[in-house]
């Protein structure tokens, strides 16, 4: 196989595979490298996705869907539950996926469009010649290799150092990440709810999950992803694991479940980058912090991000101009189509992070679960602002939103 391509994509997650598919469909010679021996593993994700993602990627195959979800139940620190069944308002609902199947399906779709996919290939460095990125180098089956391309797309996720090699400021500060731990569990139940498997469940509160939330995402047949994301602190004993186990102890229906898989990770929940390109190089997906800062969901954002990157690179290839200036269209389009909305979501998160448990309890009386979902989409911030304005002590937070 030739080691020269039009585009090399590093990372075969949703961003990388969706970008590869679109560029291959446009006739570009695309190679995707992934360090993992098996795409989709290890899972570091709650695996939830809004059903409207299918408008972009097509129908998700049944085998990749573990459970169909009609809405969410959100629990305030005082136990008050807000419920939204989005299907009642004509929306599609969502899915809890099997990422191991889903990611392979996306990669297969890219391959079907003509992209090359190479798993078990570790890209360690960008290849730089005469000051320009001309490809990548790394190890395949333990042997060093180099490959060249007119453009390199970094879709490696947040934990890779590759993006930083381009000179872009990719670092996630500790204040802008959630540290997460999740068990995939079977034989669980949520007490008093016979229909719990139809909803995503989210618990908020600073005692429970400091500056984050606890979740149960049903996966069918009495199983679920059960996890927590918190903003890390330097208090030695209080890890995500500590809060996770504490929550399980207080919920016998969960504690009595069986642990099938343990997953952990860090999710960027802020620090959106203004600049994500250099000459011949584009950063996208979670590597560029394209994550919803409220719920930490990144699958849909990665798909959008990868496809926008593909659009821009296809256009630049046609013009034979892959300079930073030409690729900057990615910055413009991403901010226009996704960034502004995600920035609004970030603002909501910034407010939530400053709220006490009493504030959350007050808010649960003032807004609905539908409002929360709107806020998580970066919409209707005024609803939250109005609710906050009713409390004199929260006027500053309301102002932050406005």
């Amino acid at each position, binding site marked *: 196989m030739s080691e020269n391509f039009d585009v090399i994509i590093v990372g075969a997650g949703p961003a990388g595979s969706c970008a590869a598919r679109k560029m291959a469909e446009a006739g570009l010679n695309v190679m995707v490298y992934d360090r993992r021996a098996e795409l989709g593993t290890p899972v570091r994700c709650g695996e939830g996705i809004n059903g409207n993602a299918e408008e972009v990627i097509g129908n998700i195959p049944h085998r990749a869907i573990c459970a169909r979800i009609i809405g969410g139940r959100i629990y305030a620190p005082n136990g008050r539950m807000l419920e939204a069944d989005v299907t009642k308002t004509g929306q599609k609902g969502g899915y809890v996926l099997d990422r191991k199947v889903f990611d392979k399906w996306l990669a297969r779709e890219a391959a079907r469009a003509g992209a090359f996919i190479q798993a078990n290939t570790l890209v360690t460095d960008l290849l730089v010649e005469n000051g320009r990125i001309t490809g990548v180098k790394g190890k395949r089956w333990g042997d060093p290799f180099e490959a060249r391309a007119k453009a390199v797309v970094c879709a490696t996720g947040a934990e890779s150092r590759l993006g930083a090699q381009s000179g872009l400021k990719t670092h996630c500060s500790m204040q802008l990440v959630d540290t997460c731990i999740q068990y995939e569990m079977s034989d669980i139940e949520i007490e008093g709810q016979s229909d719990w498997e139809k909803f995503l469940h989210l618990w908020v509160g600073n005692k429970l999950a400091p500056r984050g939330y606890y979740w149960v995402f049903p996966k069918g047949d009495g199983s679920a992803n059960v996890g927590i994301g918190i903003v890390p602190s330097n208090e*030695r004993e209080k890890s995500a*694991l500590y809060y996770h186990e504490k929550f399980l102890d207080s919920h016998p229906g969960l504690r009595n479940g069986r642990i099938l898989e343990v*997953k952990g990770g860090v999710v960027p929940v802020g620090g959106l980058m203004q600049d994500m390109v250099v000459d011949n190089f584009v950063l996208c997906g979670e590597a560029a912090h394209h994550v919803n800062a409220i719920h930490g969901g990144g699958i849909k954002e990665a798909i959008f991000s990868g496809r926008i990157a593909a659009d821009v690179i296809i256009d630049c290839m046609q013009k034979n101009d892959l300079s930073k200036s030409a690729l900057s269209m990615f910055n413009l389009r991403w901010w226009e189509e996704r960034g502004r909305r995600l920035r609004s979501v970030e603002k909501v998160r910034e407010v939530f992070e400053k709220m006490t448990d009493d504030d959350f309890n007050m808010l649960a009386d003032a807004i609905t679960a539908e409002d929360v979902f709107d806020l998580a989409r970066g919409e209707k911030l005024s609803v939250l602002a109005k609710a906050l304005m009713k409390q004199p002590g929260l006027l500053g937070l309301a102002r932050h939103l406005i």
Partner: protein
Amino acid sequence: MKCGGCVAVCPFQALELVDFPEVDDRCTSCKICEWTCPVRAITVDK
């Protein structure tokens, strides 16, 4: 779990996840990786 969170948060890019997190000379013992690790599996003793 080798989740890679430590690599993501290292301000000095001093960590690499091979079979286990390895720090290089850029590590300043800021301990952010320790605090971020979901299971507190890292001890920076440098």
